[in-house]
């Protein structure tokens, strides 16, 4: 039990998917200008990533490894994720319109969010057990949401400041993200 806890902490803070593993940078920079969109994206990623983590783990262990066709991993994972996102979108639209209104616009973006694909691949590469894979997927997604929301908070203020013209927008966003990555080094060595 405590191992899983340590795993979760390490995935959220120390190996943070955005700041240490560099996955999911496009939504990180793209949806962090406003707090509302950052929260929306964070929630959508948590939702999709956990499901994708579970499904791809099952596909990998019971299909690819069983049939000894591991070289099809990339193809099958991306198809699983793309159809999952489609399915989730359709399901939410019909069944939970309130949630769809909040997350809807972010869902299509998730297909090309390499954080989702990346975590699924990490789960396999690290040879996690099913439970570990679920925890890791969830914790990585939480780390994603956390970093995104914190970044959005800072970025809202930075964008209001008198940033010199050539530095505005992405440029200053990246420098800010760099300092955020620096602050996340605080957690180094804690597990």
């Amino acid at each position: 039990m405590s191992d899983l806890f340590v795993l979760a902490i390490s995935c959220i803070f120390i190996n943070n998917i955005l700041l240490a593993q560099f996955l999911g940078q496009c939504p990180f920079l793209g949806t962090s200008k406003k707090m509302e969109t950052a929260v929306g994206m964070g929630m959508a990623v948590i939702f999709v990533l956990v499901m994708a983590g579970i499904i791809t783990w099952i596909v990998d262990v019971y299909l690819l490894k069983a049939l000894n066709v591991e070289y099809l991993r990339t193809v099958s994972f991306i198809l699983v994720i793309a159809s999952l996102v489609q399915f989730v979108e359709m399901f939410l639209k019909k069944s939970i319109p309130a949630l769809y209104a909040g997350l809807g616009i972010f869902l299509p973006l998730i297909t090309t969010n390499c954080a989702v694909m990346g975590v699924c691949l990490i789960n396999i590469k690290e040879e996690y057990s099913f439970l570990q894979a679920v925890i890791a997927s969830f914790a990585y997604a939480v780390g994603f949401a956390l970093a995104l929301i914190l970044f959005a908070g800072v970025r809202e203020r930075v964008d209001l400041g008198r940033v010199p013209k050539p530095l505005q927008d992405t440029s200053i966003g990246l420098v800010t993200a760099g300092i955020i990555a620096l602050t996340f080094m605080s957690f180094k060595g804690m597990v």
Partner: protein
Amino acid sequence: MNNYKLTVSHAPFWHDGDSIFKMNLNILIALLPAVIFGIIQFGAPAVGVLALSLSSAMVWEFTMNIISKDKIRIGDLDSAVIGLLFGMMLPATSPWWLVITGTFVAVVIGKIIFGGLGANPFNPALVGMAFLMLSWKTFFDFDSAYINYDFNFTALAPLAALKFQGVSGIDGLFSANGLLMGKQIGAIGSTFGLGLIIGGIYLILRGYTRWEITVSFIAGIIFAAWCFNLADPEKYAGPMIHILSGYTLLGAFFLSTENSSSPVNTIPMLLYGFFIGVMIILMRNIGAYADGTVLAILLFNLVNPLIDSIRPKALGKGIDHA
């Protein structure tokens, strides 16, 4: 009838007469006791480092103002404060290029590119420090930095000794009195605890820093260190050494209270200070660092915009037509 050119401006027509210059001047004054003591303790090299740090910080700001064709703003002394604080965090033996690179990062990357004074989301001096510590860790090893010095007290950096030798390793080496009076090695401006406390209290009384942050910061340190100590006194030291050594006091009074990167509402200020204190102890006790002050404060600079949204409801907000 004569037509005069009158001054037309908007209300209010009174101002309490304070200014950024006065505020920064007071911060510099408050830093003086610790600076003077550092110079006495570490001698001429300390003067060199501090002078270079202060002047290079101002030169960087001046240069950037010229390049960006902005108004020259070094007169508000903000870069001087950054430079002095930065210099105070360095060991007296720092090479000149380290100081200049550091102030460049602090002033230019930490402050100017975010839009200058007041727009920096992180404490500039700490940004500079964090960049340097990540790059050149060896220069911040105080034990080897002062190898050629001859002190009349235990020449061991207390926190590093605590980290690598454990509680038993520092048993009886450091007394509260000695640490308070600067009988320890460390950065130029961080050893003289009493001076930092006096300077800090002066600033608080003058209203230039917010006491809530400082008080809760120290409370956080005491609380967390005490918890650890209670759980395993063999392994974890008590609060005293944590408060009086390393950058703790500098952090509590001068670094965490930097205006632009800290909250302004009461509850957020208390949370902010407290969690920095707790985080520092976590980093020292179970993390990879001997002294986590720099990164811990930066981490909560990051959280600041989020927690500062905890605030009392504004008058008449959210009430519909009665």
